[in-house]
């Protein structure tokens, strides 16, 4: 972690077990942005303005401009509004929010505080993935610290701004990463996504206006306030402001999180991650978490790591999870595992996803186990068409896109499997 520009992971000292604590965060200019806002009484609109300028885009997957989202919240609203942080990181390949929370929890808290201030919200929840229990406990401790120090609670730092923050944990359901499923889950129900509209900004948690952002999104905000939106934007590329943490996993020498400015070439990122394991050839890469289309290695090597460039290459930056596969990887098997995941994690609510994900998986499984038929490939594509865009939430798309991309880019390998009933690799 020795990159020139770092925002989220800057100045961390992983060897110190207490590095995450409030006093250390304060030494890294922690809570300075909040203090600045409160002491200078910066109007909430100005805060949103700054975030808009930064071109910060949602880090949870969809890449929606954060400032714009914040401006959707009703301003003259009587009654409660909520701020929710989506720390239910479960997209295969993604593990950045976990590191933010365990190494820099106060940065998230400060980011949420600023968001709450900007949208005049008095209560918030941080929904933490159930599987990272130690991180949930750390967040509980960090929230206690912040509360004790007067950063959370009533009349924060003597101002008339009040904000309560609570942690809520999941317990094993990927779908709760989807924002409306997350809200349902927070309400103590099954995590089944809601149909939109209405959007959370008008009908969110407990039916109240709610803004939901990803952990990394919130954590980027204090820096933006401290240094200005323009500076953040300049770190990246137009429309792709700032740095981004990429979680690199799979066949590399040093899997891990790498924070780089948006627009950094993929090749540079790969190098930072220690290059290909065993010096093998890059066969394919999923650049934005398992829900996004796979790209062939050679395409990837020509691509820069930002929203627009990856979209141009035919995939999406998504959550910034970079899954690296070398030439020993059987793409049929890889797809089988991914399809199984969506089949397992479909919430079961809407027909195309509930029925379609199982069907997709069973066909890929058949191909993988040597019982495939050549027509299966077209059937897979057609089923993917019948799922994508027809479901309540984007899990349907997430299940469909990998199937189509795999067949598109590695059709020969699938055909080989069908014909020879075994792997090409």
């Amino acid at each position, binding site marked *: 972690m020795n990159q020139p520009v770092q925002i989220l992971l800057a100045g961390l000292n992983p060897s110190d077990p207490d590095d995450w604590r409030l006093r250390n965060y304060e030494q890294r200019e922690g809570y300075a942005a909040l203090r600045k806002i409160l002491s200078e009484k910066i109007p909430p609109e100005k805060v949103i303005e700054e975030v808009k300028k930064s071109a910060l885009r949602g880090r949870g997957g969809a890449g929606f401009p954060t400032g714009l989202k914040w401006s959707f919240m009703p301003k003259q609203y009587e009654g409660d509004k909520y701020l929710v942080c989506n720390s239910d990181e479960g997209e295969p390949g993604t593990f950045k929010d976990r590191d933010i929370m365990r190494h820099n929890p106060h940065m998230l808290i400060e980011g949420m505080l600023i968001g709450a201030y900007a949208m005049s919200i008095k209560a918030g929840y941080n929904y933490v*993935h*159930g599987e990272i229990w130690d991180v949930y406990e750390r967040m509980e401790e960090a929230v206690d610290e912040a509360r004790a120090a007067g950063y959370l609670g009533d009349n924060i730092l003597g101002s008339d701004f009040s904000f309560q923050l609570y942690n809520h944990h999941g317990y094993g359901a990927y779908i709760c990463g989807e924002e409306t499923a997350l809200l349902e889950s927070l*309400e103590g129900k099954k995590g089944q996504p809601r149909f939109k509209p209405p959007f959370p900004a008008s009908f969110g948690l407990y039916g109240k206006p709610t803004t939901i952002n990803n952990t990394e999104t919130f954590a980027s905000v204090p820096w933006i306030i401290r240094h200005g939106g323009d500076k953040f934007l300049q770190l990246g590329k137009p429309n792709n402001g700032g740095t981004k943490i990429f979680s690199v996993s799979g066949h590399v020498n040093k899997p891990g999180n790498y924070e780089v400015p948006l627009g950094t070439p993929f090749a540079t990122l790969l190098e930072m991650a220690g290059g290909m394991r065993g010096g093998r050839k890059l066969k394919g890469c999923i650049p934005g978490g*398992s829900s996004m289309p796979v790209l062939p290695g050679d395409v990837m090597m020509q691509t820069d790591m930002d929203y627009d460039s990856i979209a141009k290459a035919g995939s999406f930056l998504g959550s910034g999870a970079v899954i690296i596969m070398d030439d020993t990887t059987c793409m049929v098997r890889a797809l089988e595992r991914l399809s199984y995941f969506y089949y397992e994690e479909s919430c079961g609510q809407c027909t195309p996803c509930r029925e379609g994900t199982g069907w997709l998986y069973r066909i890929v499984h058949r191909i993988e186990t040597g019982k495939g038929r050549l027509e299966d490939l077209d059937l897979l594509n057609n089923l993917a068409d019948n799922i994508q865009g027809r479901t309540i939430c984007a899990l349907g798309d997430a299940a469909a896109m990998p199937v189509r991309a795999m067949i598109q880019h590695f059709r020969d390998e699938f055909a080989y499997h069908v014909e020879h009933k075994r792997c090409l690799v």
Partner: protein
Amino acid sequence: MLSAESLKKIDYELTKYPADQKQSAVMSALAIAQDEKGWLTTETMDFVAEYLDMPSIAVYEVATFYNMYNLQPIGKYKITVCTNLPCALSGANEAVTRFRERLGIGFNETTADGRFTLKEGECMGACGDAPVLLVNNKRMCSFMSNDRIDQLLEDLSK
């Protein structure tokens, strides 16, 4: 039905939500109940329903929706191995094989001595540390090479 200590924990969770939204605490209440009892019996779920003023079937919906709740008796240690693609690319399947060999059980099975239950898990959000696994939902173990698996089993068998 639940120990005073568990109830205290649930009561703390309840402070996080508006007074008329007790149901929001159902996930933590079930997790707390499971920590105490090992798995969720019908009676336990009924108790939680009553405690939070919600229909039993709504509790059951939640308990059966989220993977980490145990609706069957399980071994003393539930070992959940993530086998999702990123972990699989870095040795998850080998780790599973190791467990199968060492414990003589497959997924969703419990060793005859009632000590270990093996489960297949989905992405735990720790793919950089692959292979990863959870012991009893709450303890995450990373970089689970064969040696580390052997060490873990040895520790847990004590």
